[in-house]
């Protein structure tokens, strides 16, 4: 079975005056469908940047990125949008909910951009509200929710259509440990059912839910650990 994601020499840099600063350097890796990968590393190592590139939200990079065997680096913006819209869900670190919409409407947004009929949308949203135990909050606005609740809505929004790939940037940052565990359990369940999950986290506990840990430092991939905790340094 071909890899879900293939990265070859992905680099991201920006010019500041006469100096070039690298955010990511020669990232090369493969992610198979059904894997549960964790990116770890110190702040500024480039993990979140790599995640946004994988989520096709960032187009300023060089190198080759194959998603479902499609060459993302050669696609137009429209094609990229279509590709990530229908295949991946992104959980943002700062939730990024739309302040003028209720929880219900926030959950509905990604569905409305996928040409899903109204009735189906309604059922999917209700399902998600149920799953995350936030039915009572469906008519509230984000600024009426606590940080943790907003984060749950963000996660619900990303998983609402069971995408092939879920990208999560610090998904449990603002949740207390019980909620955090619930979320990780949900991810595990989704992963068992076949969803590929890539998360960025600082928590060793969260990383343990996955089956592969990739370390980044200063924009380089430094080492990889499988669930068997055997460390193999890269390069």
């Amino acid at each position, binding site marked *: 079975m071909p890899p879900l994601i293939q990265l070859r020499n992905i680099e991201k840099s920006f*010019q500041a*005056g006469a100096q070039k600063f690298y955010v990511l350097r020669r990232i090369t890796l493969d992610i198979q469908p059904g894997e549960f990968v964790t990116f770890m590393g110190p702040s500024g190592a480039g993990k979140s940047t790599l995640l*946004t590139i994988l989520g096709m*939200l960032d187009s300023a990079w060089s190198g080759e990125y194959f998603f479902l065997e499609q060459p993302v680096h050669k696609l137009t913006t429209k094609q990229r*949008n279509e590709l990530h*819209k229908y295949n991946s869900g992104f959980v943002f670190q700062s939730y990024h909910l739309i302040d003028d919409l209720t929880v219900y409407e926030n959950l509905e947004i990604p569905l409305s*951009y996928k040409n899903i009929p109204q009735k189906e949308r309604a059922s999917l949203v209700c399902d998600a509200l149920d799953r995350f135990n936030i039915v009572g909050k469906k008519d509230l606005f984000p600024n009426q929710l606590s940080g943790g609740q907003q984060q749950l809505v963000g996660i619900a929004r990303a998983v609402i259509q069971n995408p092939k790939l879920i990208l999560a940037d610090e998904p449990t940052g603002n949740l207390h440990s019980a909620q955090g565990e619930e979320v990780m359990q949900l991810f595990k369940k989704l992963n068992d059912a076949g969803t590929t999950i890539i998360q960025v986290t600082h928590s060793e506990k969260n990383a343990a839910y996955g089956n592969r840990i990739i370390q980044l430092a200063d924009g380089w991939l430094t080492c990889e650990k499988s669930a068997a905790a055997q460390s193999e340094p890269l390069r």
Partner: protein
Amino acid sequence: MKLLRSAGLRWCNLFQKAQLDCELQDELMSHLELHIEDNLRAGMNPEEAPRNALVKLGGIEQTKESVRDHRGAPTLESFLRQLRFALRLLRRNPAFTSAAVLTLALGIGANTAIFTVVYAALLAPLPYPNPDQVVMVWSKINGHDNSVSPNDFLDWKRQSSAFQDLIAMSSGRFSLSSSGHPEVIQARITSPGFFSVQGIPLFLGRDFLPEEGTVGNEHAQRTHEIGLRMALGAGQRQVLLLVLQQGMLLASAGLVLGFGGTYFVGHTMNSILYGITAIDPLAICLVAVVLPVAAFLACYIPARRAARVDPMVALRYE
């Protein structure tokens, strides 16, 4: 070259003093022995021989002294000796010494501090490229410099060809409330391009977008939302529709209220003045056509700009 070499050797000798002294002693001893032997061979008696040799040499210590003088860097050695002497003198007069040292310290310290400030504030070059090309532009009122009115700024920005770019600046105090306690901060309000015009690179975050600096364009404030929607799957077409929808909604509301008002005023006028109908069909039709078109155009252009927002720019985070 010759000077350098001998100077270099002198400096080295300074540090090998002890060893060289030993060697010199040996050499002079051997010199005397050779001379004494010769004297004895020449027939001098054993008491006379050494004395004669010593006298001919001119004294061991004197010889050593003259070689030593020549060996080291004489200026440095005498300098060190004099320094030690000076220190001894100073230690004998603690009151004078401390007064002098304190005065000097204060003077030097104060001067350094002042110069540091002066340098940083007045002399040091500004930390961005081509600082000599950055100028402040004032307006003149009664011959005095004064701040510039916003519309003047916009006119100058549009019409002037003398400047690469013009940035408007103002400042104010704001209360910043992030997670935790609010605090009062001084902030600078600028038009977009403040950093790029000065060539200051941004490592994180972004500068204001041009649309955020346009007067009366509320859609620019929705950049974050638009970027987010695009990240969630909105295509350019959907963003366009969204913005147009909102714009047209406002226009329609205005239209309805306007018509209502027209009718009311017309009716009132009708009862007061003669020959004026409450509702003039032509005027109403004209307005009903022209206004929505105008509203559409006014919304379309910002809508197009909104649709071109790069989600990552709008959502920039670490």
